[in-house]
């Protein structure tokens, strides 16, 4: 797993990268009440806003962590946004993407670095 400073996690599954948000982020956000997902097939560039999640408090963007193409989105999240709080690391992944340059992953933190980052 790799972690971004925006509190996203990236997990490589075969030739795809699965993206979600960390437990820390889900706790900070509070109860998530709305998730807007991108469409499968969308070409994205790194740091582009691709999802919106809204908690009871505020809206937040999820950024594309890598250049590439969104190939699958987690549709059930739209009906069950609360999953982001219940199961952020497994069930509540947001999208799977095909990265055009996997070496972009190298810029991100590993688990220990992320733990230090959030203090």
């Amino acid at each position: 797993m790799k972690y971004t400073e925006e509190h996203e996690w990236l997990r490589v599954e075969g030739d795809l990268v699965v993206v979600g948000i960390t437990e820390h982020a889900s706790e900070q956000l509070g109860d998530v009440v709305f998730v807007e997902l991108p469409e499968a097939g969308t070409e994205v560039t790194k740091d582009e806003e691709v999802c919106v999640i809204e908690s009871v408090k505020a809206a937040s963007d999820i950024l594309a962590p890598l250049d590439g193409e969104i190939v699958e989105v987690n549709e059930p999240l739209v009906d069950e946004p609360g999953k982001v709080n219940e199961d952020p690391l497994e069930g509540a992944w947001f999208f799977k993407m095909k990265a055009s340059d996997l070496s972009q992953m190298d810029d991100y933190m590993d688990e220990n670095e992320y733990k230090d980052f959030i203090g």
Partner: protein
Amino acid sequence: MGELNRTPLYDLHVALGAKMVPFAGYEMPVQYALGVMKEHLHCRAQAGLFDVSHMGQVVLRGESYEAVARAFETLVPMDVLGLGEGRQRYGLFTNDGGGIEDDLMFANRGDHLFVVVNAACKEADIARMKAALEPEVSVEEITDRALIALQGPAAEAALAGLNPAVAGMSFMDVVTVELAGAECWVSRSGYTGEDGYEISVPEAQAEALAKALLEMDAVEPIGLGARDSLRLEAGLCLYGNDIDTSTSPVMAGLTWAIQKVRRAGGDRAGGFPGVDRIFGDLAEGVARKRVGLVPQGRAPMRAGTPIFAEAEGGDPIGEVTSGGFGPTYEGPVAMGYVGAAQAAVGTELFGEVRGKRMPVTVAKMPLVPANFKR
């Protein structure tokens, strides 16, 4: 930014695991371990305890209640003189332009008037009252008492566990009773749409009273986050968001708060700031009105969301002033201002969220029915 104030319940909030945030000059609990959603639902199902000690408590005394009431009527378009002893009423400080300077609660406590004002406005409110009322009426800010709200269908049973006398109170009754050994000024009121009480308690005994209530199974501490979603579902205005110095009470849909006796043709008509505009609005209607709004999608429409009459083109015809997710409503809820022509319940409008126009329907308020004990 100056130092933040702390209420007498600060240590208790921290001990209860509250997340503290700056609010109106105070460090206040925004949520506890349950989280905003569960706190909200708990308050509607059982009872929630709120620290509202940041609000201003003011006692006005004069020669008699009547003398104080007549003086106070020069500041508010409400019937103060006709308020019965042991009764409370909602009021508004208006300005010369007919806008709202603050909303408040006032109670006839026999020999004095007890006023509760919003935290962010309290300094200005007290200055306004002193300038207008002294020396005939003394304006004393009460700084040695906390203010606690206990709200929800189980509030009566919980508070009656400490003193059975409170069970006999009706909505907007005010009494002085002993609770957990403290002399408390209790009103049957609140700002959640639920039955419940607001309790002014001496500072030194506030924590003991709060703990006595929190020991009861039905009572959970509730933070500002849920207080906001509860009052929004209940259709209640938040000063600074839904009403401000430019909104007239008529625009805000608060004409019910202006009793007949103070309106044109009434025995004590007028005599308050902004009377010309307010009487004009009452007689001729207003161009914009506050309405309930229900977004048809799942996306919340938050304060500042522009409202349009059409799915494309045109200028905004209004704006959301409070919006978010309603845990009891189980969907996004909002209120805001729209043109009078678009204010009828059922009107289909569009709110622009992140550049996209989404359907939103004008809805009857409150969005969740009130549960007051009349």
